[in-house]
C-alpha cells in the first residue's frame, strides 16, 4: 500500500510537533493553519515553540513537509489530525472555540473517505458530539510533554484511539500510520479514550502530589526525600518511571485543565472529587515554597533586598510560563528589586515593575541578597557555587529542584535550601 499522506490542522505546539514527527517517520505531511502569518513563518523555518530536535527535524524533512493556509491542500490527505492547542483560562477551563472552528474547516475541506482524528485535549463527550453521517471520525490521545514533545511523538508508548464503535476495524491508512510507530494500539469508545487521557494525567498528579506532600514532611522531620525515592522506584507497584520528583505544584496548564474538568464533571454528575480538590490545594500550597522561605530568611530580615531569580519558564526546555512558579513568585515580589535570567524567556514577561532582565546567570546574582533557582534548566547546573557566592551579597540560595549541588553550595558558604530535606 502506498504510504498515506497525513494532514495536520492547527500549527501550534501539538500540531507542529506531530506534523514534523510524521515527516521524520517518512510520511508526507500537510501542515495546515488558517493563520497565513503563522504559516509564512513556519515556511521560513521560524518556529513558534522551543522543543529539543524540532528545528533540526524541520530542516531535515523539508521535502516532506508542506506548510499551507489553503484548506484545499488537505484534499490530498488520507488521515487528517485536528490538533490545535486548546487554550485554558486562569481557572484551567478550556476554550473549545478554536478546535470547533478548525474541525468545521477540516470537515469542509477533507475527502469523505479521509479519517479525521481529533488529537487535541477535549472533554469526554466532545468527539461523539462531532460525529456526522458518512464521515470517519476518531479521537486519539496525545501525550505531549513540554520539553520532550518530539521524543514522545517519535517513540510513543501506545496509541489510545477513540472510535464510534471499537469493534469496527480502523481505516487502513490510519492503521498504517499508527503501525509505523511500532507500539500497541488500543481502540476503545470515544468517551473511554477521552477519559483515558484524563486518567493518565490524574495518575501523574497523584504521584506528584504524593511526592510533594511527603517532601514537605521530610523538610520538617529531618528525613530526606531523595533517599526515599529510590526505594519507591524499586517497588514494582510504583515503578522506576514514577513521577516522584518533588516540585512547586502542578504547572503548564494541561494537568490543571484535567483537574478542573474532573471537578466539573463530578459536580454535574454527583460523583466525589474531594481528592482532586485536595491535589489542587496542595499544588497551590507548594507553589509558594520559595516565597515562604524568602520571607523567613530574607524579606523579614533585610530592608529593600535585591533578589536574583534564575528561570521564568514553568519547566526546562520550554518557553511556556503558564502557571509558572517563577512567575507566581515574581508577582508576590512586586515591591522588591529583582534581577532575572532565563535562557529562553525574556525578563520582560516578569510581572514585576522593579524586575530587570540580566544577560547571564552570574549577572543576575551580582549584589543580590538571595538567589532563587526557579526553573531546572540544565545549564544552571553547570554554575560553580563559588562563582555564585562571589557575586551574591547575601548567602541564601533557594533551589527547589536541586539543580545545584547542595554540598558544593554549603562548602562555598551559601545557605542552601531545597525541596524534600530540612535546611
Amino acid at each position, binding site marked *: 500500500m502506498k504510504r498515506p499522506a497525513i494532514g495536520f490542522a492547527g500549527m501550534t505546539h501539538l500540531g507542529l510537533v506531530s506534523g514534523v514527527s510524521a515527516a521524520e517517520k517518512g510520511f508526507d505531511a500537510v501542515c495546515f493553519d488558517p493563520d497565513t502569518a503563522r504559516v509564512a513563518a513556519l515556511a521560513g523555518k521560524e518556529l513558534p515553540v522551543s522543543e529539543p530536535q524540532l528545528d533540526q527535524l524541520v530542516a531535515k524533512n523539508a521535502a516532506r513537509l508542506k506548510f499551507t493556509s489553503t484548506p484545499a491542500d488537505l484534499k490530498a490527505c488520507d488521515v487528517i489530525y485536528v490538533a490545535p492547542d486548546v487554550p485554558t483560562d486562569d481557572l484551567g477551563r478550556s476554550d473549545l472555540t478554536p478546535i470547533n472552528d478548525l474541525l468545521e474547516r477540516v470537515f469542509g475541506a477533507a475527502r469523505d473517505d479521509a479519517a479525521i482524528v481529533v488529537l487535541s485535549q477535549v472533554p469526554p463527550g466532545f468527539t461523539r458530539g462531532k460525529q456526522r453521517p458518512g464521515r470517519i471520525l476518531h479521537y486519539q490521545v496525545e501525550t505531549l510533554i513540554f520539553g520532550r514533545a518530539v521524543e514522545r511523538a517519535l517513540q510513543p508508548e501506545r496509541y489510545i484511539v477513540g472510535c464510534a464503535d471499537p469493534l469496527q476495524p480502523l481505516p487502513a491508512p490510519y492503521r498504517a500510520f499508527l503501525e509505523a510507530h511500532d507500539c500497541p494500539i488500543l481502540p476503545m469508545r470515544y468517551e473511554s479514550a477521552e477519559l483515558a487521557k484524563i486518567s493518565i494525567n490524574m495518575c501523574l498528579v497523584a504521584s506528584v502530589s504524593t511526592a510533594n506532600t511527603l517532601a514537605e514532611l521530610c523538610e520538617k522531620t529531618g528525613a530526606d526525600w531523595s533517599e526515599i525515592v529510590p526505594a519507591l522506584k524499586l517497588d514494582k507497584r510504583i515503578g522506576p518511571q514514577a513521577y516522584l520528583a518533588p516540585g512547586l505544584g502542578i504547572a503548564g496548564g494541561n494537568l490543571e485543565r484535567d483537574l478542573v474538568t474532573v471537578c466539573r464533571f463530578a459536580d454535574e454528575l454527583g460523583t466525589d472529587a474531594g481528592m482532586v480538590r485536595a491535589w489542587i*490545594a496542595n499544588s497551590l*500550597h507548594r507553589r*509558594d515554597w520559595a*516565597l*515562604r522561605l*524568602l*520571607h523567613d530568611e530574607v*524579606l*523579614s*530580615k533585610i*530592608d529593600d533586598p535585591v533578589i536574583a531569580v534564575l528561570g521564568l519558564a514553568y519547566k526546562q526546555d520550554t518557553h511556556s510560563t503558564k502557571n509558572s512558579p517563577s512567575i507566581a513568585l515574581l508577582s*508576590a*515580589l512586586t*515591591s*522588591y528589586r529583582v534581577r532575572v535570567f532565563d535562557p529562553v524567556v525574556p525578563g520582560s514577561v516578569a510581572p514585576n515593575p522593579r524586575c530587570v532582565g540580566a544577560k547571564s546567570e552570574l549577572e543576575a546574582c551580582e549584589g543580590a541578597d538571595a538567589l532563587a533557582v526557579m526553573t531546572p534548566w540544565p545549564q544552571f547546573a553547570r554554575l560553580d557555587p563559588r562563582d555564585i557566592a562571589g557575586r551574591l551579597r547575601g548567602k541564601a540560595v533557594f533551589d527547589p529542584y536541586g539543580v545545584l549541588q547542595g554540598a558544593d553550595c554549603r562548602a562555598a558558604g551559601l545557605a542552601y535550601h531545597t525541596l524534600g530535606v530540612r535546611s
Partner: protein
Amino acid sequence: MIAHAHTEPRKPARVVLLGASGFIAGAIAGRLASQGIAVLPLGRPVLDLTNPEAVAVLSGALRGDDAVVVLAALTPDKGRDGATLLKNLTMMNHACAALEKTGCAHLVYFSSDAVYGLGPARVDEDTPAAPQDLYGAMHLAREMMARAVPKAPVLILRPTLVYGTQDTHNAYGPNRFRRTAQKDGRIQLLGGGEETRDHIHVDDVAALAARCLMRGSTGTLNVATGRSVSFATLAEMVARQFPNRPEIVKTPRASPVTHRHYDIINLVKAFPDYKFIALEEGIARCQRESLG
C-alpha cells in the same frame, strides 16, 4: 486573601475604634497614635452597643470618610450561652445600622479563629468556617453582617490566640502561665500540654491592623505568625523567664489532643517584609513589662 486599595500606605482620615476599652483595641489605638493617625476610641460607657440608642449615638459620631474598626464583643469569659450570642448580634446590628446611615471609607471587623472547626489542623483563609460553639457562630454571623453593610469596603481579621501584658483575660496560654508562675510558682498544663497552637503578640496584631488600615485592605486575613508550638514548649519558655524555675505540672487529660497551624502565605503576600515578634522574645517582653 486580601487586596490593597492603596499601592502605597496612606493615613486614613480618622480611625474609629468600637470596643475601645479592650486589650487589642488599646494596642491598636497606641499604634495608630504613634503613626500620627487620628483615632476616635468609642467604648462603654460612652457607647453601649447593646442599647438601641447606640445607633443614633454612633451615627452622630461617625463621618463618611472614617475607617471603622469593630472590636466590641462580649468575650467567652462573659458567657458562651444563647443570651450572650444574642447580645453580641444585637451589638453588631446596631453598629451596622449606624454605618448604613453614615457610610464609611473602610470597615474592619475583628473576628476570631473560633470560626474554624477543630477538624483541620492546618488552616488558611480558604478553610471552610465550621464553628464549634456559639462564640464562633457569633463571629461568623457578624462577619456576614459586616459584609452586608452597603458600599463599605470590608476587611475581616481572624486573629489566633493573642497575648500581651495588658491582657485581662486569663485564658490557657502565655498570660495565665506567666501569672500562675509568678503567683504560685507553678504552671499547670492540661494533660501533657501536647496541643500545638499559634500565639501572636498583641503588638503584632496592632501593627498588622495598622498596615491594613493604611493600605485600605479588603477580604479576609488570618492574623497569625505561622509558627505553632505545644503548650508544653510554651510553658518551658515562660518558666525560663523566672530565676526560680516554676514547677510545670501535668494533669490527667480530659479531652483529645488537637492541633492548629496557620498557613500564613496570604499574609506574607500582603506584607512580605513583615517581621513577627518571636514567641520567646514576646514572652520575655511581657515579663519585663509586668515587672515594671
